[in-house]
């Protein structure tokens, strides 16, 4: 039941990044959510619906990619999808290490840039080099 708090964190981080990148309206947000996490996609979507009106996120699409839990066996090297309880290698029974399923991050967002930005920038150099997508966290 802490999905509203999580969504607040998502919106804060994107709002800050959007400001840095001169984006005034967000059109799409993609989150990646491993199944080991307790957060529920439905509850995240509900939080999104009630939180995004009257913000720079109004009307934006939310995509949540769920990642199954996959473990890797240190003995036989097999990679297997497992349930939420037992993380043992189905091939040889050894205790396996988690490879996927812990993910919990903002993958990317899409948005519209501020129009004035292209008109502004009197020295020109900032214009061509700045506002580059692909910024890393």
């Amino acid at each position, binding site marked *: *039941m*802490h999905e509203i*708090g*999580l969504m607040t*964190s*998502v919106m*804060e*981080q*994107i709002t800050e*990044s*959007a400001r840095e*990148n001169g*984006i005034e309206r967000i059109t799409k947000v993609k*989150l990646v959510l491993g199944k*080991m*996490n*307790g*957060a529920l996609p439905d509850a995240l979507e509900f939080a999104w619906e009630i939180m995004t009106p009257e913000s720079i996120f109004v009307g934006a699409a939310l995509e949540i990619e769920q990642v199954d839990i996959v473990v890797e066996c240190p003995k036989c090297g097999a990679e297997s999808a497992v349930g*939420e*309880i*037992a993380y043992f290698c189905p091939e040889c029974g050894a*205790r396996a290490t988690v490879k996927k399923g812990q993910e*919990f*991050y*903002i*993958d*990317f*967002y*899409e*948005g*519209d*840039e501020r129009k004035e930005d292209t008109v502004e920038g009197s020295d020109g150099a900032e214009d061509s080099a700045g*506002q580059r*997508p*692909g*910024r*890393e*966290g």
Partner: protein
Amino acid sequence: MKVVMAQRILRANDQVARDNRERLQGLTTVNLISSPGAGKTTLLEKTIAALKGEVVISVVEGDIYTTRDAERIAGQGADVVQINTEGLCHLDANMVGRALDQLDLAATDLVVIENVGNLVCPAEFDLGEDYKVAVLSVTEGGDKPAKYPLVFRQSHAAVINKSDLIPYTDFNLETVTEEIMTINPDLEIFVISARTGEGLEKWCAWLRDRVREKKS
């Protein structure tokens, strides 16, 4: 325009948790997590009393409302700070950081953070602790570890509390222990009755060892 972030959703919390961990260097910190009513506060009262004179315990009490638990802890003579989350279902690193400001950390060996009673959300938030400890009580039923595996997976120890009530319930200690160990084979399990004191000795010894280990 597309902006790739690849940024953890709980990044802000994780940063503060790192700061807390830095501040808590040299002392041991335990984050107690359980459902409401599992007996965290009683366990803590008995633990403080049992370790009196050996280990100085300071407590961060997390509750949605009221200061009742903090008053009980203060009654044991321990330094305690109450956090009221006003509806929020878990403690986060920021709240704990502010609470730490009010404790005399230099005079403390062990900080125990009693999280808000909830088996789901607190598991997701790093507070800067060394150890998460899951508390499960007999009366909740033995199916809880399988229903809430995340907290048991992330914990270093699990306390099965209210062991004095086992004869009056369908709780099968062996099956539950097995299930907990399936989820997390590294877990230390303590079977305790905080009310009668049964099993408390082993739990206190574990805490004492953790404190000694961290100091050395």
